[in-house]
């Protein structure tokens, strides 16, 4: 009898400490990054680090602006492509598709989420980059194809499953009575979707988009393979860019003999972490308010 109780008590404590350790990881990572990034922030003011465009590690100049812009443009473009497509897709799956079709399509889309990102990168290099190069040449724009546009397209495809599966979930959770009330007044199905269902599902859809955004924002491998990695502020979607994630992945561990280089890269990592944390907290907040 006593043994059972002891096991019961111990098992609870074990699970509790494991959970605590896992949740503490976020704090630990953030703190570690901060400590490592401190040296460079002590030498150069953070404002200058964020707004300067000159990236000359050997001269001790670490301007993050081009990389921030690279990340921003690639992510922004990806969201522009992904949002309308995902919305139309989610609405179709949840409101129009017959159940049998839904049962086939949804797992298929969820499969996209399971493809390793390096595979998306290869797909980008083999299909998207040449397509952009050839199409651009036809309209007299010279580009290698490795570009913000290529990054945007590949990222958009990668966030489809996230945005779609959360949105479908959210739209399906709108009570049937909402549709019935609208339809019984003689509204068409599209009017019902547009004016009642989407309105009800709106906070959840925003949260889905933010989740997708966070994924796109932090994605490294696939992007680094298709954006060209030239440290410049891109002026058109056909130019190369160099997102922050790619910078860190390409250089960390290789150029660490350069003074302050590793501190600079970890500052980049800290910035990424903070922005993603901010967005996922925003998503949580919006979902909570919508749930009320």
């Amino acid at each position, binding site marked *: 009898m006593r043994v059972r109780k002891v096991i019961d008590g111990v098992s609870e404590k074990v699970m509790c400490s494991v959970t605590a350790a896992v949740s503490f990881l976020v704090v630990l990572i953030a703190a570690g990054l901060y400590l490592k990034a401190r040296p460079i922030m002590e030498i150069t003011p953070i404002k200058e680090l964020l707004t300067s465009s000159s990236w000359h590690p050997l001269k001790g100049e670490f301007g993050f602006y081009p990389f921030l812009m690279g990340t921003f443009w690639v992510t922004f473009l990806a969201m522009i492509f992904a949002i309308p497509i995902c919305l139309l897709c989610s609405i179709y799956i949840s409101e129009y598709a017959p159940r049998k079709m839904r049962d086939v399509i949804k797992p298929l889309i969820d499969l996209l989420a399971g493809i390793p990102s390096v595979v998306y990168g290869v797909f980008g290099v083999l299909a998207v980059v040449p397509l952009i190069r050839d199409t651009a040449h036809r309209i007299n724009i010279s580009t290698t194809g490795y570009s913000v546009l290529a990054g945007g397209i590949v990222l958009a495809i990668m966030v489809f499953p996230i945005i779609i599966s959360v949105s479908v979930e959210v739209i399906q959770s709108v009570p049937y009575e*909402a549709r019935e009330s609208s339809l019984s007044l003689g509204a068409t199905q599209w009017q019902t979707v547009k004016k009642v269902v989407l309105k009800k599902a709106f906070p959840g859809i925003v949260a889905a988009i933010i989740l997708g955004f966070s994924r796109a924002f932090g994605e490294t491998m696939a992007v680094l393979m298709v954006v060209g990695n030239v440290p410049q502020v891109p002026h058109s979607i056909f130019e190369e860019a160099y997102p922050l994630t790619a910078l860190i992945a390409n250089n960390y561990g290789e150029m660490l003999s350069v003074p302050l280089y590793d501190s600079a890269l970890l500052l980049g990592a800290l910035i990424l972490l903070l922005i993603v944390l901010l967005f996922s907290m925003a998503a949580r907040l919006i979902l909570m308010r919508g749930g009320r």
Partner: protein
Amino acid sequence: MYHITIKGLNVSYGNHHVLKNVSLEIPRNKITVIIGPSGCGKTTLLKSLNRLLELQEGVRISGSVLVDDESVYDPKVDVTELRKKMGLLSQRPYPLPMSIFDNVAYGPRIHGTRKRKKLNEIVEKNLRAAGLWEEVKDRLKSPAASLSIGQQQRLCLARCLAVSPEIILCDEPTSALDPFSAQKIEETLSELKTDYTIVVVTHNLRRARRLADYVGFIFLGELIEHGGKKDIFENPKDERTRRYISGESYL
């Protein structure tokens, strides 16, 4: 003379035969109450009239429903026009996620009324008809969800009246309400019957007695008998009807 004529209506969900060969005439500008125990097909019957039923997956419907001698299930029928003609008041009120005003104006707007003045008129007139105007006239802009459930049901009634239906279908319209709100809805329905044909589904016999002009009794998917209120309540022909009305067990 009859507004709605149902002939040989059969409905089944998968293998479950819900309505069995139901035939019923519903007179114009009267309240027809369909009574019967829960789960015997009353709601199904109601929703087969405005074709909301066919939205359910795996439902099969056969037989005919005529409204003004036109077949509801004719492929040529514009289903949005049909539904506009038949307002629906469901068991639990479901205000649309918008303001009180917009809830009532929703129907007229989707059917193309844009002018603010006209909409104001429609909203006031129908909120009055539903007996809610005095309570909400100062807060038409507040969300409909802020109303009490009884007020919400009257709002739903106003919303359904706003598209000028000819028929009002009520599915247990008062069962979720407190007695006071329930009485208000019932009084409103009794007033409305001069202009509308009303079909009410309920398992509450007292309510049925108060409201009904005509009564139909459904039991296990079959329409056992129907007729004037007096005939059914005082002189039922079928044993099952008699037992149900007198509150005896069904067997």
